[in-house]
Every structure is written in C-alpha cells, then in structure tokens.
C-alpha cells in the first residue's frame, strides 16, 4: 500500500514539475512563433505583389502598401491599385500545398502566385514552386475555371501548361486554385 502511494506521489510530483517547465517554455516561445508565422504570410504577400523589401523593412513596407480586409473570417490583402491577394490551400500528392495568389483589379485575371508550402516530389512535382512554372499563370483567367493542360497545349486564356512528369501535382494545384477561387470570389464581390 505504501509502495503504491509512493508511486503515485512520485509520478504526480515529477509530472507537475515538468508541466510547469513546459508552460514556462511555451510562454516564452509563443509570441516569437506567432511573429514568425505573421512574417511568413507578410513575405508571401509582398512576394506575390512583386514589392521589394528587406529583412528589416518588411514590417514597414507591408503596413505602408498593403491593406488587410477580413470578410467572414477570410483575409484579403489589397493594394491601392485594386490588386487583391489571398491564401489558397488544399492537398497535394504527398502533403498539403499552401500558396498566395494575386488577382488583378478586374478580379478575374491572375497577376501572380507564390507557393508558401509544399511537399511534392523534389525535382518533379516540387517544380510547382519554381518561378518559371508560376510565371505561366500571369494573365490567365480564373473565370469560369482554370485548366492545366499537357505541356505546349495551352491556347485559351484560362489554360496553363502543366509540368511534364508531374501530372498529379499539376492536377492537385488546378483543383486547389479552382475550389478556393469559387469560395473566395463571391466574398470579393461583396467588397
């Protein structure tokens, strides 16, 4: 009986000490982690708008140029000329894909896109994050729908050349863009 009591007391005491130290670590790191995530988003917004910045000026450049507007829990980043950017996400082949997309003020044409996070196959699907691929989206219409076609076949204003050898990643990206746009466009219309 005494042994059992000792066991419980031991685990309780050790557990409490460790819990307290974890709370302390969490209190110390939580604001830094929050700031890291904010900077990550701000970077991608400035990147997608093509606004130059440096590590030290990022906060100032962002607050000077970009206006943040929230509609129904969705965040929109708006430039003075009417360009609008927002985050899109969905599943890729191996893991989630997260990107920032910027539309021109007509709200139908893609101006630019940057990938924030992806875990596609390096060298194949991983090329969705390459500038050379993302630049293919410039000027393409997202209405009624964006279509990724086999390389070299893109003709229409809503068709983009996919990556050869990475059909699944290309299809995944197409689906992510279209489903997110369908969700966001009505909200933009209410602005």
């Amino acid at each position, binding site marked *: 009986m005494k*042994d059992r009591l*000792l*066991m419980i007391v*031991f*685990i309780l005491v*050790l*557990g409490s000490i*460790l819990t307290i*130290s*974890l709370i302390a*670590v*969490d209190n110390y*790191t939580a604001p*830094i*982690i929050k700031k*890291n*995530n904010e900077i*990550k988003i701000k970077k991608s917004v400035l990147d997608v708008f093509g606004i130059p910045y440096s590590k030290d000026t990022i906060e100032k450049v962002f607050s000077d140029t970009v206006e943040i507007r929230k509609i129904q829990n969705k965040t929109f980043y708006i430039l003075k000329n009417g360009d609008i950017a927002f985050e899109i996400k969905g599943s890729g082949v191996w893991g989630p894909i997260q990107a920032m997309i910027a539309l021109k003020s007509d709200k139908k044409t893609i101006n630019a896109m940057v990938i924030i*996070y992806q*875990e596609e*196959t*390096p*060298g*194949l699907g991983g090329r969705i994050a390459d500038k050379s691929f993302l630049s293919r989206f410039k000027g393409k219409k997202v209405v009624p729908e964006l279509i990724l076609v086999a390389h070299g076949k893109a003709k229409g204003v809503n068709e983009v050349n996919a990556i050869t050898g990475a059909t699944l990643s290309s299809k995944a990206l197409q689906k992510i863009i279209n489903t997110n746009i369908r969700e966001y466009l009505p909200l933009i219309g209410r602005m």
Partner: protein
Amino acid sequence: MLKQIKNTEGFKTIANGLWRDHPIFSMVLGICSALAVSNKVDNAIAMSGGVMFVLIATAIIISMLRKLIPLRVRIITFMIVIASFVIIVNKFLEAFFPIISLALGPYVGLIITNCILMGRAEAFYTHNNTWLSVLDAIANGIGYSYTLISVAIIRELLGFGTILGFRIMPAGWTNWVVMSMAPGAFFVLSVFIWLTRTLAKQTPD
C-alpha cells in the same frame, strides 16, 4: 598507459556508443528518423542536435533520480521526461529556426518514439551514475549524428547536387530523384549498415 585508459569505464562507454554498440548499425534503433530526415544535411544536423539534447537531458534527469524511481512506473517516468524535453526542442526550433522546423515537420515530435532514448534510459541511465550516463548520452548522440549526417551527405549530393545548399555537382548534373525520396534512404542506410557491420565483424542476430 593506453591499456589503462582502455579499461576505464568512461572509455568503454564512449567506445560502445560510437562503435561497438552503435545505436543505428549495431542495435538498429532510431532507424525511422534516420530514414525520414536524412535527405538534406541541414535537416540531419538539426535532428542530430535535437536528439543529442534530449539524450543528455534525459540522462541527467533519469540517472539523478535512478534511486528514487519506483521500478513499476519507470517506463512512464522515462516517457514523461523524454516527452517534455522533445516538446522543448520542438518549441525552440519553431521559435528560432522556423524553416528547419517546417522541413522536419512531425519528426521532431517523433524523437519521443526514438528507441535510442528509451533503450539507453532502460539499459544504462537507471544503472549508472550521472557522469557516466552523460558520457553515454554524448557517445550515443554522436554515433547517431555521424550516421545521419553521412547518409544525408550522400543523399543530398546525389539527390540535389548540393551539400548544405551549396552546389557541388557540375552544371548539367541530373538529380537522382529517388535519393531525395524515402526509397533512397533505405538504399543508402542499408549500404551503410552493411559496410559498418562488415568492418566491425558483426553478424546479424
């Protein structure tokens, strides 16, 4: 003189961790993380640092408490001590090395299940004093690290043509995509285990 050094407890502990009872190729512990995060050298270094820190911290706590820990709850004790330090490492990486933290993904958390930690706690830290335990932790940590980093050097070189992000292979080098994916880890690690076991003249049990 050399013989005297060779017979000390400390020397034996280090030699065991680095070579004779090497965690990966002799005891085949910690394989999962060695396979998962060895595709780039910087990931391997971060992971090694994390494992090393958790090993040393666990060694200190467990060996200091070894006379107090009730036998029947020792596994729970190891678990909560290891888990706490892993969470600390994870938070630290998230706060100060966000990019590496993102690349390592869930594997930092999985240090908890890294059998090296439980194995060493059960086999060594509960029976030895703090000084020897810390020595054992360092030796095992280095043993794990040099395996992980050498596998990562081969995989990053062949899979991306770079080491630590610096271009090594000439322009026009075709990346071996398989090396940067999970199967590449199996190939390289098994060749590594084969070579080191042959060198150490060990037979599989």
